[in-house]
């Protein structure tokens, strides 16, 4: 591993230096991976949205994307597999002034953490979930995920995946999320805008980021490197804002619909709880 280069004052600092733990760079992500892009977009969005960085807390689970918490220079938690949302629920209820961002992968949030995902959406707990979807478990070496498209190969589906994948925006929508968007790692500017928008939105927001996994998903399925995947996204993604979430299925190398799909208002858990408490108070003091 290369050592940290100290930046002298007259040198130009890394543009994101104030947001990254430079002492942990280089990161673990492979060349061609889209997680870094998502982090960059997140960092620019933090900058743009003008939120108080002291009050932003990042929670990650386990997996490649789960390492994000370790690289951002914010209060950050690297928790157990699948429980990032549950952990974040505690934080946001413990101190409602915080802006909690859950940054994790598809396997972590949707497979093992599926229950927390739907319930947090139902409760409308105040947090932003950035789910990097690379269609596979990459940290453990390429196992099938609940997002792996049908007939796609993975190490635990050596003869092709037999389970249809989740449509993450649809399930987020049906469970009650107030903001749902999807972008690919190619749409950096739009992704940044979405994150900026969601950071300022109270309630449960979900942004799915489709990301290449050059090391496992692409390699096992012979899709080329990260650049080839980016080219595929470029040629095959269609922006359709406001599309009905039920039409957002993703197949193997089929076109991907991206955009902002849901943006609605609902009282958050904290608001409902506060109102309920004050109702009781009124009732008791009557």
């Amino acid at each position, binding site marked *: 591993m290369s050592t940290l280069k100290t930046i002298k004052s007259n040198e130009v600092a890394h543009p994101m230096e104030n947001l990254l733990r430079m002492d942990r760079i280089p990161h673990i992500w492979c060349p061609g991976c889209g997680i870094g892009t998502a982090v960059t977009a997140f960092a620019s969005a933090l900058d743009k949205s003008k939120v108080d960085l002291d009050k932003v807390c990042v929670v990650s689970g386990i997996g490649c994307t789960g390492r994000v918490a370790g690289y951002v220079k914010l209060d950050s938690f690297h928790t157990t597999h699948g429980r990032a949302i549950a952990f974040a629920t505690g934080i946001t209820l413990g101190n409602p002034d915080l802006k909690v961002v859950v940054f994790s992968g598809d396997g972590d949030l949707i497979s093992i953490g599926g229950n927390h995902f739907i319930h947090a959406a139902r409760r409308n707990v105040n947090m932003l979930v950035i789910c990097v979807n690379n269609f596979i478990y990459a940290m453990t070496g390429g196992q099938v995920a609940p997002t792996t498209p049908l007939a796609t190969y993975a190490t635990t589906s050596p003869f092709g995946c037999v389970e249809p994948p989740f449509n993450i925006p649809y399930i987020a929508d049906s469970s*009650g999320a107030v903001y749902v968007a999807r972008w690919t790692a190619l749409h950096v500017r739009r992704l940044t805008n979405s994150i900026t928008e969601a950071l300022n939105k109270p309630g449960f927001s979900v942004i799915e980021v489709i990301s290449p996994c050059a090391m496992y998903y692409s390699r096992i399925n012979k899709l080329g490197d990260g650049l080839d995947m980016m080219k595929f996204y470029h040629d095959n993604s269609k922006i359709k804002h406001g599309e009905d979430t039920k039409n957002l299925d993703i197949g193997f190398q089929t076109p991907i619909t991206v955009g902002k799909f849901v943006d609605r208002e609902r009282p958050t858990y904290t608001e409902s709880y506060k109102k309920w408490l004050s109702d009781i108070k009124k009732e008791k003091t009557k």
Partner: protein
Amino acid sequence: MNPIITAFAKGIKKSGIKPSRISVPSDIPFEPEIVNQLGIDFFHTIRGRAIAFGTGLKLGNPDLIVVPFIGDLMTIGGNHFVHSGRRNMDLLVICVNNFLYREINGKSAPIQKHENEQITTQKFSPYSTFEKPFNATHLANSCGAVYTARWTALHTDELADSIAEALNKRGFSMIEVLSPGPNYYTGIKKIESDLLKFYYENSVIKNGESPRNVTINSDEKIVVGKFTEKEQLTFIEQYNLQLGKVLGSKFTPHGGRNG
């Protein structure tokens, strides 16, 4: 007998399926006598795992017809619910929705205030009053269920028909039954029948209604009916298809009625 069980018994009869083929994993305990009368195999599993347990039963012996009863409305077992739906695992999930909702259609439901200092609706309710419940049908659809319906426990005939239909349906079916579940509310038995009647009277049948529109809201009538039905390969069918394609003669298809 509990009206849901009555409908279940009728449904089995109507479906023409031999009861001994039916296995019920459930997180609601059934009375042993009822299981005897039904002539099924019954497994009282731990909270939330009925669907996962049922998945094992089905894959272990694809000849079985597996009907998980879930009483916790996907609280603790929500993940198994959505994933089984996605896989289109061949299960008929009967979801006993025992939520206590104070107001329907602007009317107050007959829920007594507990004499204790506790707030009544907190009495082991799966949801606190300040939380919105799931629209289970919508959720089931968003993860791929092939058959969804909702009835109150007093719609016995419709419920029995739905059960009979879904028992013969391949894939992940979900029937939601609105009923104050017996196990959760022991102690306030009296209000059960009142509540049930209240739900029955304040519901409206709309077959084929879009799942998105059947959320149970306090200012509208409860929509019941058979909402969706579609055809899709089940997990076992997809498994046999895909592996047969790749492995050819080396592959022995997984047996059972879908094999």
